[in-house]
């Protein structure tokens, strides 16, 4: 009897492995955590979209919980996302934009057309800040606490329900 059970061992092993791999199939590869989670916002020195003379660095994000949104005029999803960002700004969340791989004219046009929820926009034409943030497509959104540490990351489109269900609770949590 004992020996019989022993023969079932490979089958049991196979079933465990099968279940494990089956779970892997339903994982969304774009919902992985950012590598920068719980780390300092990367150092940068860039001008703002609004003023080519004004140079800003990571100290811009200190002192207040800030939502950093990486966008670009070339990105259609960013346009769809704007109403949600405007909603967040209206609820008193501080937003800073990163205009990623864009030109100044197009970036400004975008904000005139779709609204500007951002306190200021970091102009990143080469995508160097985006690269240091591990951004592989816009839009991407990072929540930075008042010490300048990245606390939450959202890849892709922010749906209206995401504002209520995840973004606002996260902002509250780190305030």
């Amino acid at each position, binding site marked *: 009897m004992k020996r019989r059970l022993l023969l079932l061992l490979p089958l049991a*092993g196979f079933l465990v492995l099968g279940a494990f791999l089956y779970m892997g199939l339903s994982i969304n*590869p774009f919902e*992985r*955590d*950012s*590598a*920068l989670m719980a780390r300092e916002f990367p150092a940068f020195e860039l001008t703002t979209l609004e003023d080519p003379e004004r140079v800003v660095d990571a100290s811009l994000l200190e002192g207040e919980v800030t939502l950093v949104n990486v966008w670009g005029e070339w990105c259609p999803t960013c346009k769809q996302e704007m109403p949600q960002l405007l909603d967040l700004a209206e609820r008193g969340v501080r937003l800073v934009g990163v205009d990623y*791989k864009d030109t100044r004219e197009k970036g400004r046009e975008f904000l005139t057309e779709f609204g500007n929820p951002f306190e200021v926009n970091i102009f990143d034409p080469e*995508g160097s800040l985006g*690269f*240091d*943030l*591990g*951004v*592989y*497509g816009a839009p991407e959104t990072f929540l930075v606490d008042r010490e300048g540490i990245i606390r939450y990351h959202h890849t892709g489109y922010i749906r209206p329900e995401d504002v209520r269900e995840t973004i606002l609770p996260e902002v509250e949590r780190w305030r």
Partner: protein
Amino acid sequence: MALITRLLLCALLLWPALGQAAVEVREFDDPVTEQRYRDLTATLRCPKCENQAIDDSDSPIAGDMRERVYLQLQDGRSDKEILDFMVNRFGDYVLYNPRLEGRTLLLWGLPAGLVLLGALVVVLMVRARRRTSARDLSAEERARLDALIKRERTE
């Protein structure tokens, strides 16, 4: 009909040429660095396109990553430094060859462990079988065996 077939054939023949659009022309001082560039871009996974190495992806981020690999090689950085640089930004996801560390011990150890386990099972089974075949029959068993053979013959 024949014309369509021929056109399709032409399209198929051109297919491999179209697939190579992602490769830029890079200048290297020596063939060793060039080989390192090839190896690194083949082992780094594109974060945007799931199952493509950055060396054959047209995605903009893959292009940026190839550029960084190239520039850092020119700066004289080691392979490990370059891989660390990428993992710090894009996570372990970009490594096609996961590193051997505490968290990945199971991943690396499981196949070897299973092979060892299988070998152990085979050894135990062979031993057990050998023991049973080598054992002598007891007097009682011998008598039963004789009786069975006898019955077979008389029938």
